[in-house]
């Protein structure tokens, strides 16, 4: 069943950048990173074509979708957003200065296929790993900013993600800057084994020290955020914002269903569910996110 779905997804991908493709992978999504969809570099890469929204079934101009940062103009369904687009969405124009560019993953365990995975992810996304980070201004407020990219091996957290998050936290700490991290992650990068797990510890010591100061930390959780990211820096924030419909948790729904044989309720682990459960502060539409962060930052200057 799973395999059947996967091969459908694969052939669909070959046919072009259909949203359906994302969605198949969405459904297939599990906590495990490598199984998570390696998403296309951008929905709008094939120019001027209509695509059908998986959320509402209506046709969307791919150009319009791109202009709306991958939010369906009809039903407001939030498709994943590449990290460079996320930075473009949030940072004041021209204000983003990337830090730690060119940092790439080692292959500490010589894990089967890892090199190839990294290369193809790099080719597909143009990124060095599942993250972009640096300093920027949001509505004029200087911030340290990191954004994860789900297309790069399912946004899994390996040493590069851990290191760049940590350096971003340290930059915020040293500069007395507010910290904004946008997460999207299937969880750990198993190819890096224990190093992947230890990134939770590394980011946590940095964040814990940052939190002894008085500058704010806002975590933005997007679809999907699971595993080690949620269980470390993703949730230890002053304010936790989630995008509408984003699935957020530790263990993914499929893992839970297959382990416990329990049918999970509709909307399980969505942003709305987690807000209802007191775990998320705000649900903010992507096209209002910059404004929302500006408002928040405005309280603290």
């Amino acid at each position: 069943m799973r395999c059947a779905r996967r091969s459908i997804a694969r052939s669909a991908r070959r046919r072009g950048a259909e949203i359906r493709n994302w969605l198949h992978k969405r459904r297939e999504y599990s906590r495990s990173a490598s199984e998570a969809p390696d998403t296309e570099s951008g929905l709008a890469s094939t120019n001027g074509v209509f695509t059908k929204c998986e959320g509402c079934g209506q046709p969307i101009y791919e150009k319009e979708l791109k202009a709306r940062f991958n939010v369906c103009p009809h039903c407001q369904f939030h498709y994943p957003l590449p990290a460079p687009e996320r930075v473009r969405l949030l940072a004041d124009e021209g204000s983003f200065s990337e830090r730690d560019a060119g940092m790439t993953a080692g292959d500490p365990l010589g894990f089967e296929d890892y090199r190839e995975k990294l290369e193809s992810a790099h080719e597909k996304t143009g990124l060095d790993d599942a993250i972009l980070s640096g300093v920027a201004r949001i509505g004029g407020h200087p911030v340290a900013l990191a954004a994860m990219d789900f297309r790069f091996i399912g946004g899994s957290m390996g040493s590069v993600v851990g290191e760049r998050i940590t350096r971003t936290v340290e930059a915020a700490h040293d500069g007395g800057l507010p910290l904004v991290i946008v997460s999207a992650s299937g969880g750990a990068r198993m190819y890096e084994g224990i190093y992947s797990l230890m990134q939770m510890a590394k980011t946590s010591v940095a964040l814990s020290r940052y939190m002894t100061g008085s500058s704010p930390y806002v975590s933005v959780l997007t679809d999907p955020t699971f595993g080690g990211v949620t269980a470390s820096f993703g949730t230890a924030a002053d304010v936790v914002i989630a995008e509408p419909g984003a699935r957020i948790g530790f263990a993914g729904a499929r893992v839970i269903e297959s382990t416990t044989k329990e049918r999970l309720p509709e909307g399980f682990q969505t942003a709305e569910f987690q807000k209802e459960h007191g775990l998320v502060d705000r649900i903010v539409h992507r096209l209002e996110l910059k404004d929302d962060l500006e408002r928040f930052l405005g309280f603290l200057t």
Partner: protein
Amino acid sequence: MILEFEKPVRELEARIAELHRLAGPNAELQEEISRLEDALDAAKRRIYSNLTPYQRVQVARHPDRPDFDRYRDALADDFYELSGDRLGADDPAVRGGLAKIGSRSVVLLGHEKGDDVNSRVKSNFGMAHPEGYRKAGRLYDLAERLELPIVSLIDTPGAAPARAAEERGQAWAISADLMALARVPVPVVAVVIGEGGSGGALAMCLADHVVMLENSYLSVIAPEACASIIFRDEKRAPEAAEAMKITARDLLAHGIADEVLPEPLGGAHNEPEAAVEAVVRAIEGTLSKLSRLGPESLVKNRYERYRRIGTHVTEGEMAGTRGPGE
């Protein structure tokens, strides 16, 4: 329970016992017995000294393996147990309280896996729910307040893949523990006594000194799950265990563990006293060393210890293949 790879040993043992019963004073049989005993000894050494990573995982999971209770009794003349998260639940998968180790009072905590069907189910096979992480967090706060070192004994398959655990925010709870351990200004010693599964284990072993028993493991994901995801075949768990480098010696080599304690031949369950004794000595030694450091040094060293772990490559140069060990 007899593990698959132990079968030759167990069979030899059975044959020897049978022969003993039959032999009486028969000199010829005595010789045969003697021969078999040598063979047994050789078999044991051969098998047990060359356990594959996945075989070690099985040893780590052995139901007779010494557990929290056993170590606690050996470690502490007195254990003053505390319960609850103070929020509405008490998780039987996490135990904790005050203990005296040698002349030192500590906050001792660890996982409870249970030792019969009922207690195993009750303690969810050692997989904590959010209330367990919050109970641990409460104990970390207590340690800070009373200025006592923290000693944790890790033995968990990992976080609970369960609806209730998600509904009460297990990711949030684990994250809060990590943040607390990162800043707690008292010595933190972690001993992986059995399984060290994922974030569930990490919530108790972000520490100043990480001790691992020879056959314990620490892994970002269970080998079976890794195999099923990466190799699309759960049966390839042995390969996954190998590839992920999850054994105590691997972790020592990678600088993640600070100390590996050899286990008796065949695993701690074959001679619990020896394993327990080694753990007690290691903890006492570590506490004694860490007690010389002030709160600021402890937190600063802990920061640096974890800060270094990673295998990213910067500008074409490997930057931090090694972990916290020197």
